[in-house]
């Protein structure tokens, strides 16, 4: 009896351990938890840019006062796990009751630089949209350090724009499907 009692805990411990290991493995390997380990460190700098007033005849396209560095560090991703960074505006540029279509804002891009991707990754140029999120940066697997996409924003200038100080926010999100 003493020996039997002494083995029961050992047997139960083993069973529980197997059960827990199975649960963790199921979670790790199961579809809902496939991407549980991936983490993103997304930074943008600066967080605000400005377009100065200019004569539309002589300056049909206005360059922003600064480029924007979008840096992303990806860790914990599998070798086949895709990720992407998207941008979507909350609306048009607005100044009181006046507005300028946000699609007049676009960007060119250079990079990635300052870090590397373990698998191919790319930066993309585009036009800001309030309707559809636009891809800025995508790739697969982890990054080494934080590769940077450097964006150069421009605004299409036009005489019919109403006088005012306009503003709008763009949400930039890193996700993995």
């Amino acid at each position, binding site marked *: 009896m003493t020996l039997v009692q002494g083995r029961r*805990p050992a047997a*139960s*411990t083993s*069973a*529980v351990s197997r*059960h*827990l290991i199975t*649960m*963790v493995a199921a*979670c790790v390997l199961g579809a*809902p*938890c*496939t*991407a*549980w*380990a991936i*983490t*993103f*460190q*997304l930074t*943008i700098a600066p*967080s*605000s*840019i*400005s*377009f*100065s*007033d200019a*004569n*539309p*005849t002589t300056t049909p396209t*206005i360059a*922003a006062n600064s480029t*924007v560095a979008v840096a992303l560090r990806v860790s914990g991703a599998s070798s086949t796990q895709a990720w992407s960074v998207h941008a979507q*505006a909350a609306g048009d*540029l607005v*100044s009181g009751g006046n507005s*300028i279509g946000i699609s007049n*804002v676009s960007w060119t891009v250079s990079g990635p630089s300052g870090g590397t991707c373990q698998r191919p990754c790319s930066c993309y140029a585009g036009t*800001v949209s309030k309707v559809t999120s636009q891809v800025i940066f995508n790739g697969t697997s982890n990054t080494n350090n934080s590769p940077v996409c450097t964006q150069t*924003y421009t*605004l299409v200038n036009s*005489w*019919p*724009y*109403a*006088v*005012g*100080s*306009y*503003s*709008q*926010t*763009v*949400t*930039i*999100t*890193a*996700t*993995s499907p």
Partner: protein
Amino acid sequence: MFSFPGLRVSAVLTLTFVGLLCARVSSAQSTQTLTINATVSARAELTISPTTINFPDASPTTTPSIPANSTVSVTANVRTGGTPTLKVLANGNLTSGANSIAITNVTWTASAAPFIAGTLNSATSQDAATFSSGSGSYSGVFTFALANSWARADGSYTQTATYTLTAP
């Protein structure tokens, strides 16, 4: 199965850990916000072409009104929160030495709104357009004519007129 307190704690902790890891699945994203600002200030830009027109000599009997050798294209670009204006003021009568022809003999028509027809005047600025409020870009054509008369002295007459576009 969990009949041993120590194992129960471990199982609960492990399940909690697993739960936290799985909870990160739905939050595996990172978000930042970029603010875009733009400034649009009041300004006005007026372009006319050509900047010189001529009225050739003609018989007043057969040509009581002499058309200029060219029409004048006009483009008015404005950014304003108010109502723009386009005015023209002649700097005097047409003169040739001591002789003169009253500048009010020069009239123009306009191709389309917001530009309007008028008569040159050296005393009072004349409206050359009637704009609606706000910013815009407008293009049109002015066609000038000189009232002809037998009473004019021979000579080569000249004068300037100044157009002023205002975006208040």
